[in-house]
């Protein structure tokens, strides 16, 4: 099988793969996405949906801010609002130590020229989050942050890319890649594809591609756990994050409450399954109970975890391969890649079409793992 005239083969039908396909289409480059399962099957489809510039690693801030602009006009990009709502995100300080840490961060960001995170005192905090326990002392707010529906978003990127002529091969597993002349040959469970450029958006499975390219990376497959409640009367608009303890907390438009924050399930990457750890979830439940007294009687009715990749330094790998020509990576988003989806696809498309990106991506180079021994 040929790649049906595609110049680029993208491995992985998560949000990043779909976004790369969409931005390539906009640049007039034909791409084909190979997805072993279905588009949005793992973390892209089932993450907490946070559209967050708040609390980002400093290296990610320029990308996150650029992405946020795209989110605020997401309908123009994908013809769907993706369920995006912008009620802000707030990291709450529960004590003096939390408050000091957050205020130091605000000062550091301001010194770097960023103003998207702002300290708010207790009175403003309780005005914005009336349901919050009164032991909280303040917080950092990113006003333009928000949340979207992850599966709907991923599906919208895919649909728009498809409408612009890109091809998606679902239920198709990549078995190997090899170089033939000036082309890449991708052996898949549905036959062989040939293309000029390869993009690695394989998420928790991306390290296999890197290993095949001779640039192994220390990637860990993780499954951040989430719980959802039955519908409750509306009591919360912004997304609330913990400072001293892990928590991500939001109420969806239909009233269900989503509890996440990075506590991890056990993951079997081969079987593509996760197993929840209820003692860990109990700790999340205690945090929620203490921060939101209204939640004591909330009914939990489903928990899950989406499989994704975490790098040791918890920032992604974005950019060209260090060993092979015409290969670009975008993986390892370490549990906070959703917000970056719209922009990283554009960066990848820019790298392919112009050889450079207008945004600073040097910190994300795969070269930082040079010398990592393969497992």
């Amino acid at each position: 099988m040929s790649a049906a005239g595609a110049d680029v083969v993208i491995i992985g039908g998560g949000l990043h793969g779909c976004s790369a396909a969409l931005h390539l289409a906009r640049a007039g480059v034909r791409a084909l996405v190979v997805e072993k399962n279905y588009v949005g099957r793992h973390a892209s489809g089932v993450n907490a949906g946070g559209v967050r510039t708040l609390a980002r690693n400093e290296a990610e801030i320029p990308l996150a801010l650029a992405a946020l602009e795209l989110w605020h006009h997401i309908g123009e990009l994908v013809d769907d609002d993706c369920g995006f709502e912008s009620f802000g995100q707030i990291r709450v300080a529960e004590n003096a130590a939390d408050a000091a840490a957050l205020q130091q961060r605000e000062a550091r960001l301001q010194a770097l020229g960023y103003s998207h995170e702002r300290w708010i005192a207790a009175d403003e905090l309780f005005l914005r989050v009336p349901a919050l326990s009164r032991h909280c002392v303040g917080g950092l707010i990113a006003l333009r942050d928000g949340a979207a529906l992850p599966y709907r978003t991923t599906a919208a990127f895919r649909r728009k890319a498809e409408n612009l002529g890109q091809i998606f091969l679902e239920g198709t597993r990549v078995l190997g890649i090899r170089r033939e002349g000036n082309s890449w040959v991708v052996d898949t469970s549905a036959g062989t594809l040939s293309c000029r450029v390869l993009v690695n958006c394989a998420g928790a499975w991306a390290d296999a591609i890197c290993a095949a390219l001779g640039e192994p990376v220390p990637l860990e497959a993780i499954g951040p756990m989430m719980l959802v409640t039955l519908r409750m009367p509306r009591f919360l608009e912004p997304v609330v994050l913990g400072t001293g303890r892990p928590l991500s907390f939001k109420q969806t438009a239909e009233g269900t409450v989503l509890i996440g924050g990075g506590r991890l399930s056990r993951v079997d990457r081969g079987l593509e399954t996760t197993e929840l750890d209820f003692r860990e979830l109990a700790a999340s439940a205690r945090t929620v109970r203490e921060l939101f007294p209204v939640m004591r009687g909330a009914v939990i009715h489903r928990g899950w975890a989406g499989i994704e990749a975490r790098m040791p330094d918890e920032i992604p790998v974005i950019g060209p391969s260090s060993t092979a020509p015409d290969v670009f990576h975008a993986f390892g988003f370490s549990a906070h890649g959703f917000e970056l989806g719209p922009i990283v696809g554009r960066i990848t498309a820019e790298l392919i079409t112009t050889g450079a990106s207008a945004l600073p991506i040097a910190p994300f180079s795969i070269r930082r793992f040079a010398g990592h021994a393969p497992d």
Partner: protein
Amino acid sequence: MTLASRYDILVIGAGPAGLAAAAESVAMGLRVALVDEQGAPGGQIYRAITTTPVQQRDVLGADYWYGEKLVAAFERSGAGYSPRTTVWAVTREADEFQIGLSCDGGAQLIRARQVILATGAQERPFPIPGWTLPGVMTAGAAQILLKSAGLVPGGTTVLAGSGPLLYLIAAQFTAAGARVECLLDTTPAGRWRDVLRHAPDFVASPYAAKGWSMLRAAQRMMRIVKGVEQISAIGAGKLDGVRFTTGGHTQDIPADLLLLHQGVVPGINLSNAIGCAHHWDAAQACFTPTVDDWGATSIPGITIAGDAAGIAGARSAEARGTLAALHAASALGHLRTAQRDAQAVAPRRELERWNRGRKFVDALYLPAPEFRIPTGDTIVCRCEEVTARQVTETVALGCTGPNQMKSFLRCGMGPCQGRLCGLTITELIAKERGVSPAETGYYRLRFPVKPITLGELAALPQTDSSVDAVVRIKR
């Protein structure tokens, strides 16, 4: 009862399969507990057998009271028993299982080396226009009210659907003094001709005589309309009547209560969430856990007994409970293979006896596609009020399976966790795409499989790891 922190075998469900499995396990000297959601043993078939106010024996019938013997044997066995207990998770923990359960508002985690699921059956979804109106319920739910509280419907009652249980319930209600106006039988006309090849086996089975006398009795007691092709519940705000079509002719009859029943299917929410392999059973048009002839699943240590592993009825469930216990004991190294096989001879003989005629019953009462696969504005997912048309339109958008459908329409994401729409969604997508239900697949179900409060979850004991939980939010 206070549960211990560890058992050799945990049995979930106190119907015939669970009662037999627990009694057999404890007789072999194993540490066993049986946990059950109800307040008293019996499951659905023998529900409330120790507490029912319906003491006139011919109302619920001899097959119901047979359960007394089984419950008595279980009570004599000395197996641990925790009623009013809901299991909401079963996860692997090293070479054991960790079971999350709640009893009287308190959650706890206990461990067991082997788990026997005896979680029984549920009524098949029966989505017709108007089935969410007040005044419409399942016949099984009405039977629960009769068994547990002696309640019978007061007004004009119409029964509709298919299958032996429908006629049993009709007989029980009539005996209890209810006025059943009419029974609308949706068994497709001509189905008898298709199933004749299975008839000799059925005639030789213990069910034949019973089935025949039940049909005859029902015919004497109420109007029976055969070959019903369409049914709608009609009314504004509540049920006023039932509209049905037979032989191309449509008529309305007034009704205060419409009881729907289209047979039972395995309750697979727990086995699915645990990750056991399931397959599409075309004969019963449902997903069924894939088990061997001991009830062992694809996950070593998880065994399924009774109707939860495929519908075969109460007496078969009892035998399968015994076999599951023998298997679990053998897996624990407590019973040598030869002993296990020797002790399995008697229950296997029982199983064979009670499974005879099953093919006939399955083939005769397989609901017609129009009662499994609704169209138009008929609600499919009651929790999220998703209609058949929404589902088919979403398939046209490129949604290929039930799990994607959850993301598009939230169907299956309400409190029932897909119990009342799962099979319908699968068959609807399969029909629309022109592929098999097996290929379409089923919802991936998630723990907790039964809702728990945040307060209950928060009260679970901490571990060292959760105390030292890695804080991943950066400063």
